[in-house]
């Protein structure tokens, strides 16, 4: 086997197509896509999940943050093909039909958003934090959100919103649930 095998040049009208299948917000979705398609664009344009926003395309603003097997990733910098076979959670997957997620409630209650453009990404980064660390300090929250930019709020109320949600989640958790110490994996 050689490291490099020359293949015929592809003209643009025979762009290769890949089939991908992934779980998005708990539902299995499949699509035929160009390999260069970004995950953010598959979610937004292909699956009409427009709650995932794109603000910069350069992995800086975090507006496009989704959970990839539970970990926050910036979907503007993930190819959709990389998500093949994986589990994706977007903002649309946070609430159930009847109930908001405590993080969503917290953002509203503590005025953690203004224009709302950064909010989906912020909430998903916050969820990843609280899944690992149910009892974060203010610094923990600020650090966990430091990959998400907000131009409107000045962050203070976002931090409060996440702490509000943490408190509510701890309160709501059944008393006999196994304690999660949130320590290093």
């Amino acid at each position, binding site marked *: 086997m050689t490291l490099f095998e020359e293949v015929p040049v592809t003209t643009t009208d025979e762009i290769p197509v890949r089939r991908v299948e992934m779980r998005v917000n708990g539902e299995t979705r499949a699509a035929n896509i160009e390999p260069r398609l970004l995950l953010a664009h598959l979610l937004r344009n292909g699956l009409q999940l427009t709650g995932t926003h794109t603000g910069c395309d350069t992995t800086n603003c975090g507006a496009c943050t989704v959970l990839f097997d539970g970990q926050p990733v910036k979907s503007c910098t993930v190819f959709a093909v990389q998500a093949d076979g994986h589990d994706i959670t977007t903002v649309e997957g946070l609430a159930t039909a009847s109930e908001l997620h405590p993080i969503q409630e917290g953002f509203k209650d503590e005025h953690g958003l203004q224009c709302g453009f*950064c909010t989906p990404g912020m909430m998903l980064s916050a969820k990843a934090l609280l899944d690992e660390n149910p009892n974060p300090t203010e610094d923990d929250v600020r650090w966990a*959100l*430091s990959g998400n930019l907000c131009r409107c709020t000045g962050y203070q109320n976002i931090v409060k919103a996440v702490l509000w949600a943490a408190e509510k989640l701890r309160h709501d958790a059944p008393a006999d649930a196994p304690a999660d110490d949130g320590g290093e994996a």
Partner: protein
Amino acid sequence: MALDEIKIGGLGASRKRVEDNRFIRGKGNYVDDVVLPGMLHMEILRSPLAHARIKSIDVSGAWAIPGVRLVLTGEMMAARNLAWMPTLSYDTQAVLATDKVRFQGQEVACVIADDPYVAKDGCEAIVVDYEPLPPIVNPTQAMAPDAPLIRDDKVNQVDNKVFDWEVGDKEGTDRAFAEADVVSEIDMHYPRSHPSPIEACGSIADFDRSTSKLTVYMTTQAPHIIRAAVSLVAEIPEHMIRIIAPDLGGGFGNKVPVYPGYVASILASILTERPVKWIEDKSGNLISTGFGRDVYLKGQVAMRNDGKILGVRMHTESDHGAFFSDAQPSKFKIGLMHSAFACYDIPNAHLTATGVYTNKAPGGVAYRCSFRVTEAMYFQERMIQAAADDLGMDQAEFRRVNLVRDDDFPHRTPFGFLTDSGQYEKCLDIGLEAIGYADFKQEQEEARKRGRLLGIGISTMTEPLGAGNSREYDILGIKMFDSAELRVHMTGKAILRTGAKTQGQGHETTWAQIVAHELGIPADDIVVEEGDTDTAPFGMGTYASRSTPVAGAAVAMVSRKIRAKARKIAAHLLEVSEEDVEWELGRFYVRGAQDRGVSIQECAMAAYSNVPDGMEPGLENNAYYDPPNLTWPFACYIAKVEVDPETGVWDVLKMVAVDDCGVRINPMIVEGQIMGGLTEAYAMANMQFITFDEDGNCIGSNYMDYLLPTAWETPGFELHEVVTPCPHHPIGAKGIGECATVGGPAAFVNAVMDALKHTGVRNIDMPLLPDRVYGALTTGSDISGMPPVKTEA
């Protein structure tokens, strides 16, 4: 019984925001979320050079790509008289370049295709042959006698000057300087910055040949001005144009001007007869759309030994980029720069201003401020600090000596504005108390002995928010007033529409609160709509903190018109004369018999079912509000910082904000605005600026170079409130959205300069990057932020 105003979500209620319900579910409707059947996608090819002649453009490569539907060039635009468009400041701006490119990032061609990726491929395949010309990156270079002419497209333009302008009393000021005991001088630069909402600009143009109607979804803070502009540029009758501003992912002034991408998408839709979507990428937004600031100052303060200021002189040189497309009232060439020193009692002032063209992106928008007020207040507060230092007087005391007193309103400012009200000294005292000023001198002394550098910086200011009045304020001749239209349905529920356009300020929540306050209809029973020119009444839009002062006032006024009609209906229902009807929140009653009354909802029902003889049925109205004056909020911001002498890094130990914005409609939202504004102030003082290298390459074309603060570095803020109701606003409110961005930067910079005072350094230009602070500390000299200029090798 009158209703409990807080319970119904009236004035003063920290009502949770109604718009949040969709945003937290990811169900906002931003422009990129809008999908129309058969929609095509447009991408823009931009110039890589700052200044170059276009020798040729070969678009054949783009046309060869399957899926490409249209390629637009300047030549094609010119054939339709669309290669140039008017700016909001009576200049012209190229839509797509024909002759030359005049800044890096200028729009050169557009590709319209089935898919945005293919449109990008199309842009890649276009070959442009440029002949580079010498670039101009700052005003000194622009005004050099042998400088190349940037705007050779304009007849009668012989140099790179945009304007010379002056205001104030020159003779009086000269006399004041002649009589002064001490004259303090300081030069500085307010660097170019970009408002940079997280959502960039975009549009979807949809021209329907069968009806001749053009609908454009657009990221605009001022849809009605855009409708007028599109009508003029594209020669489409105004009633055949519908501009819809959907949810905006922030604006901060960036989404006021008309951009080439909007115009190109409109022409593309007309030519293809399909909807055409253009979504700008971040880099395109940062390098080509409305920037803020970029002004140089020479400032002088004349004082008596006792601290009394006798006069100020300011000379500004502003860098407007390649096209004068500032968004500001047409009478005032350098915006409201002459609102400087409005909070101080100063008898004489004189300002001269020169604006120049450079090979940089155009704009000069009011970036979270009321038309250059940010520069004005920064210069003011830096001049005040330097003057206090030069005089050897305590910075707080120096302000106290010169601040306008509470019984001195209305007060004529040194440049002729009339401020309305305030309690300046009270705000200052609250701030000093909160920061611990009394003990600070000693703390600073002791820290310095141990090698630690502490500083406190104060910024006190009042700023003019809420243009007009329409006598003095217009954009392109369109008078600056605003509007509201209220329809009360028969069940007492209502819909309110205004000419403003929220971008995160929460109008859907707060406007309903004003109606609740005036009519007693619970805020939850009122839906608010903005941004669609086919349904909203004409208004000038949302920027320069004008929503509450102008549109908010219109909301109160239209509610009062509704109440006046409801009163007549109430008299009819109660079978008494109108004079015998009294009002309390939510109901009318018979004077002397408070239990005999009808609710506003009963009046609404009667308006549709049982009106008195001769009265028109229905309960709706509109109001156009032309404010008698600007509103003048006051703020005192005080920062305490520590500078690390080893690295030049500085940390905010405490930041105190005392804001008096009059009556607060929704305190929660007001505080949110203040915290957001303080963060942008911190950003500008600390890290956020756009500069250019000697070739005119934009440094700051993405979020790796253009640094915005994250949750990690943004300090916490301590907020305090003072309320002096605005005497001429119907509910006593003043603007607030921008105060902290305007007044905040000087507090941070003054604090760092205070920490460095012992070194003799008087000025470091923003942002106070560690290397600048370290450089000043180690050399003992001031640091200028002027961009480098290419010299002959």
